[in-house]
């Protein structure tokens, strides 16, 4: 029994916020579309956290009403990822950054998953040579204060963030990221069953 997060029949509600507590939530504020669109602009102090923070707030990504603009965006991101697959090093990072720079159409919650995929790929490419850059790439998007998509992409991004934090000596951030990833997967597993 499997369930896809992008092939469901629910079309009307763009974003259903589901607050989930791991080892705790902060103020319980729900995410908004504006928050999603401004994801990367959101300054975060995660990287400088001193204490492990296992807070996990999630929202479910519900398939949106399809539009031509939405399709063009998703196809463009898929194209970027395909191109990056055949590249290495700085060329790969540059390609992925072009994907991150693509303008996200309005009312396309699926874009949040795609942007997490892109950011994770960038961080993975940076991990060896520049773990600080890898951490800084993901930390703002995965700030414990923010709600993140209830999705495999978030779990994977948290693992890569944990790896980057470990390499930069930020053990508290690493522990929190791994813990949140594991909790995310536990929730996803429940959804699949």
């Amino acid at each position, binding site marked *: 029994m499997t369930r896809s997060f992008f092939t469901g029949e629910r079309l009307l509600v763009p974003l259903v916020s589901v607050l989930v*507590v791991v080892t705790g939530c902060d103020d319980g504020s729900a995410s908004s579309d504006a928050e999603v669109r401004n994801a990367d602009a959101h300054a975060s102090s995660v990287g400088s956290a001193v204490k*492990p923070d296992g807070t996990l707030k999630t929202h479910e990504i519900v*398939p949106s009403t399809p539009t031509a603009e939405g*399709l063009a965006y998703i196809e463009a991101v898929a194209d970027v990822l395909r191109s990056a697959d055949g590249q290495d090093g700085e060329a790969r990072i540059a390609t992925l950054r072009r994907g991150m720079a693509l303008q996200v159409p309005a009312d396309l919650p699926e874009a949040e998953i795609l942007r997490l995929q892109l950011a994770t790929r960038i961080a993975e490419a940076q991990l060896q040579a520049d773990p600080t850059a890898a951490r800084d790439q993901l930390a703002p998007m995965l700030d414990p204060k923010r709600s993140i998509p209830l999705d*495999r992409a978030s779990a994977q991004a948290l693992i890569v963030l944990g790896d980057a934090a470990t390499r930069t000596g930020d053990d508290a951030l690493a*522990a929190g990221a791994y813990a949140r990833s594991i909790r995310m997967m536990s929730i996803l597993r429940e959804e*699949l069953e």
Partner: protein
Amino acid sequence: MSSSSPDSAENPEAMQKRIADELAALGEEPLGPDEVAFAMGGGGLRSDLDVSTVETLARWAETPEDSDSPDAEAAFELSELARARVWRTVELRASRAEGEGEAEVQAPSAQPETGSGRGVLLGFVVAAVAVAAGVLLVPVLTPDAGPSSTPDSVAEVTPSGGPSAEELEMLSLSARSGLDALDRLSGEPTGTARAEAMAQDYADRLASQRGRG
């Protein structure tokens, strides 16, 4: 935790007998000396047992999907008893952790059905990895609020001390194993293939919508 867990007030003899009875009901052998010592011990960490348990779970999660391959056969050479013991180890650790404070761990709704399909086993592995890692988190993250696992509830986390390198390594291993197992359980594409699948699904839905219009 929603699974059966030993009563914290249960005396050691009764607990040992109950565990033996449960294993007997499963057709399994009684606990070995190490397991008895673990179950009856004072709750101290047994890092060797933790490591072996997580390694076993990781090996299951990393087993190739082709169940006929030699690697798969090797991984699943674990007897039903061994699987039950791994699960018992995880469950006992989780139960003990719950007795010490809130352990934000998720247990499977039932023990694994040994000998059944791989989907069930993989589901179990995902859950068990989460449980094992959750237990590991107890000394790393100690919440100062009461149990708060319902949505919309609020709690804060207070660290009880920084994680050790070993704990971080265990967390990393558990997270990776969990992701691998989740992928096998869901059967959905990942990476670029997923983005392509999303594009195709979106295109199909757009075409369908236009067809209706």
